């Protein structure tokens, strides 16, 4: 039976235990970035809240897409992943508040997506797949045995992306 490891707000979880599934529940404007090495089955999932870490404090690195992705990479490499084999996928970054007056100032989802894409590009990674934007939250799962990533939206079925 699969063991679900919840990845909370501003957290990173890394595992190479084949019975584990990494899950970020209900990502709204947050982004979930998954890294997976199919050779060693090392999997890591980041649940980033905000786009850019301005004060670069050690403590909250995983809360920001830019520093969080770098930390995630460090952690999966330390766990034994081989950089050249790492597959990266991303989901989330919805624009939750769509009422008049909120849209522009609160579009943190889009900014998270942009920041994550830029950071991955700087690190030389290409996104294998992404499920981003829109106005609906998503639960994101990363299956350690095969690196499969899935999303599920409110009232919907789980599906791979």
């Amino acid at each position, binding site marked *: 039976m699969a063991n679900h490891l919840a990845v909370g707000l501003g957290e990173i979880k890394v595992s190479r235990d084949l019975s584990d599934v990494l899950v970020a*529940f*209900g990502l*709204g404007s947050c982004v979930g970035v998954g890294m997976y090495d199919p050779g060693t089955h090392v999997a890591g999932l980041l649940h980033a809240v905000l786009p850019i870490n301005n004060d670069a404090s050690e403590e909250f690195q995983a809360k920001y897409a830019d520093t969080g992705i770098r930390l995630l990479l460090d952690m999966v490499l330390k766990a034994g992943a081989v950089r050249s084999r790492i597959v990266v996928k991303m989901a989330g970054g919805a624009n*939750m*508040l769509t009422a008049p007056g909120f849209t522009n100032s609160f579009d*943190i989802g889009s900014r998270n997506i942009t920041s994550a894409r830029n950071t991955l590009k700087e690190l030389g990674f290409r996104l294998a797949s992404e499920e981003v934007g829109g106005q609906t939250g998503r639960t994101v799962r990363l299956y350690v045995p095969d690196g499969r990533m899935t999303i599920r939206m*409110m009232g919907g079925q789980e599906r791979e992306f």
Partner: protein
Amino acid sequence: MAELTPEMNQTLLENLRNIAKEGFRNAARGFADMIGNELSVWNPDVRAIPITEIPEMLGGPENDAVAIYLRMTGEVSGQIVLVIPYDKALEMCDLVLEQPYGTTQNLGTLERSALAEVGNLAGTFFMNAMAEITGITARPSPPAVMVDMVGSILDVVVSTMGDVGSQVMLFQSTFMAGERHTQADFWVIPDTFTVEKLGQHVKGKHG
């Protein structure tokens, strides 16, 4: 970043409870007028809790919920969110629209508008109470209705706080409408830098 120390929390919490109690009572009064029904306020409280614990308080991050969201701006700023489990939100629509329970099956434009009005009322009455007690005034934004997973709704709250403080101040209460057991959590989350200001004002008046 205005970090909330334990000592600061202690004093602040005591002071903020006055606002919470009066604010919730006021909000309930406004809401009761709207639905023409008595409404009771249960367990009004203020707590400082780690952000990461919020989803569990609503039965888990993947639970479906409805949130009516307002920003308050002015001398103090923050977020006001009325969070209702999805099935309870359907019941609340029936209550507000004076229909028998079970009539509302999904949330269309009319239902969302009714819920927005509920949040609007609750938020406004809360701010009025705050102004009466502290002399601090704030204005509400128009309400936004979100129907989504609890975790996603909380993303908005957390990301709007901006500085990602390790704790949030949470004003929480449950409203019960007679035997119909309509229930909602009402959260007021002052921006971190305004929490201290709120506390000082209350202290000045009562202490």
